[in-house]
């Protein structure tokens, strides 16, 4: 049974003025988050992802639909009952939201006091958490004396204090520099691995999903337009929005401008071969081309590693008789994904196309 389940959840805000329409922040979203997942939700700002995550701990009430957390339907609970549910869900924020008037220790102790822990238990737990996040020497410091990364680590310690089963991370690394982002993501991965905490990560940065998430949902205009296993979505994004996000981190598919540049520099037909760990082999592609007696060169591409599985895109310039090239491509198409880049100078429809839409991701060169 999923630990968090949303079915047909919608959240609308009333119109702000007389002439404005109501705002649909989350539009008929259904998704299941399994225990132990690191579930990434990606979208541009305004896509509704921050609202979506606040529906899970009921900081915002849903307008319609059902949300169950750990088997409990949170849409049916009273405010008082919701407070207890929230106590079992940790949350961290982009701006950290630490209590500036309290020390690091008092910040982490706050949820424990709420939960009614004894003083001795609180002290022991705070010490344990400070050691876990590597800030044992900062117990008496105030948040303003800490760096951004340290603040977020305090935020994580505070969110984990009551040993919640779920951690919600709302743009938790968006205010941090790349180096610190990496440290915080490592810490979150450790939280998931060592403590089995299910993490829901909201972000607009695809590399956060790439390094941390096991599953991903892509949001656009309040809707989830694509969801699934991270490797699946990264290696074969189906929705244009997903393709744009994947394109920000995945190199290998030339942009239209780069296609024109490649065409100017290389003779022959430009064909992109997409490989995925497990279902296709680069070696066979090269073998097939060589057996057909075709001349080819690698002009663009990249191989990516997602959670230990590889996939990539290689663009070759192939020279030879059109019929021979077509025959070779037909053979290859049986075991790899082939996308021929159309030559805008020639009549459309000449080149055979693979079944899937032309990828629109951008690349920055051969890696």
């Amino acid at each position, binding site marked *: 049974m999923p630990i968090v389940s949303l079915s047909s959840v919608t959240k609308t805000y009333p119109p702000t003025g007389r002439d404005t329409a109501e705002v649909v922040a989350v539009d008929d979203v259904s998704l299941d988050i399994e225990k132990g997942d690191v579930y990434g939700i990606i979208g541009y700002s305004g896509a509704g992802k921050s609202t979506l995550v606040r529906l899970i*701990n009921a*900081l915002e009430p849903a307008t319609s639909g059902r949300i169950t957390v750990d088997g409990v339907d949170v849409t049916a609970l009273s405010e*008082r009952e919701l*407070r*207890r*549910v*929230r*106590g079992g*869900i940790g*949350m961290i*924020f982009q*701006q950290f*939201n*630490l*209590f*500036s*008037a*309290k020390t690091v220790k008092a910040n982490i102790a*706050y*949820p424990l006091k*709420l*939960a009614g822990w004894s003083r001795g238990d609180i002290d022991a737990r705070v010490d344990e958490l400070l050691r876990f996040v590597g800030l044992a020497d900062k117990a008496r410091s*105030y948040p*303003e004396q800490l760096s951004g990364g340290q603040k977020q680590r305090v935020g994580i310690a*505070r969110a984990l204090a009551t040993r919640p089963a779920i951690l*919600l991370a709302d743009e938790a690394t968006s205010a941090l520099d790349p180096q610190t982002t990496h440290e915080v993501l490592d810490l979150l991965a450790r939280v998931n691995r060592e403590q089995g905490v299910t993490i829901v990560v909201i972000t607009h940065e695809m590399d956060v999903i790439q390094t941390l998430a096991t599953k991903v949902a892509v949001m656009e205009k309040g809707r989830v337009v694509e969801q699934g296993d991270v490797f699946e979505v990264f290696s074969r994004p189906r929705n244009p929005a997903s393709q744009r996000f994947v394109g920000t981190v995945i190199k290998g598919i030339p942009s239209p401008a780069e296609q024109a540049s490649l065409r100017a520099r290389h003779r022959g037909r430009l064909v992109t071969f997409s490989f995925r760990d497990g279902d296709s082999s680069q070696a066979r592609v090269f073998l097939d081309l060589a057996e057909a007696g075709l001349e080819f060169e690698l002009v663009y591409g990249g191989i990516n590693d997602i959670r230990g599985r590889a996939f990539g895109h290689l663009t070759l310039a192939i020279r030879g008789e059109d019929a021979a090239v077509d025959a070779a491509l037909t053979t290859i198409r049986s075991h790899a994904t082939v996308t021929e880049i159309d030559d805008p100078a020639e009549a459309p429809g000449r080149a055979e196309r693979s079944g899937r839409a032309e990828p629109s991701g951008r690349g920055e060169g051969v890696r």
Partner: protein
Amino acid sequence: MDRLIELLPDFWKAAGETLYMTTIALAMAGVLGTIIGIGLYVTRPGGLMPNRPIGLLIGLLVNFFRPIPFVIFLAVLQPFTRLVIGTGIGINAGAFAIGIAAAFAIGRIVEQHLVSVSPGVIEAARAMGAGPWRILLTVVMPEALGPLILGYTFVVVALIDMTAMAGAVGGGGLGAFALVYGFRQFEPLVMWAAIVLIVVFVHLVQSVGTWLARAIMRR
């Protein structure tokens, strides 16, 4: 100078009255004003306990009383003052009137400082399962404490100003002393002695307030 030395016992008595009125008025206005300010803050739309009718009512009350010039307010309040204190003149009556008038001003100041507490911090407390009262007392008030102390300090200075006015209509204190023995009897030295002492009071209060706020905000 001789006149000032002659008046010295009255001068210290007047100083004591000013201190007394300021302290009583501050205690009263501090408590009342903080309650009004919290009321305004929590009932705001999107606040901790949104309640439009109550919020509007408190707001209306504050906006009605706050613009009334204090000298006139003293007179308007007279019947009520007599009811509560037993008399309409004297330092107790003066302190009472100042306390009521200042409460409305403090109400707005408290509201402003509470509103400036980061909504994110409140959301974090909500996400941990804290209820509205708990958030108010253990998050919002501590977060706003430094600026609040500066706000109260600002009000104390205004209170001393008000004691002078209350003094002019029979309340006693340094303001009345300066007017009666200094201004009206053409004794500039006497008047200036009272002014200097008021300035010293204000300066001391401001210094303590600033120091306290700094200590709390650690800046």
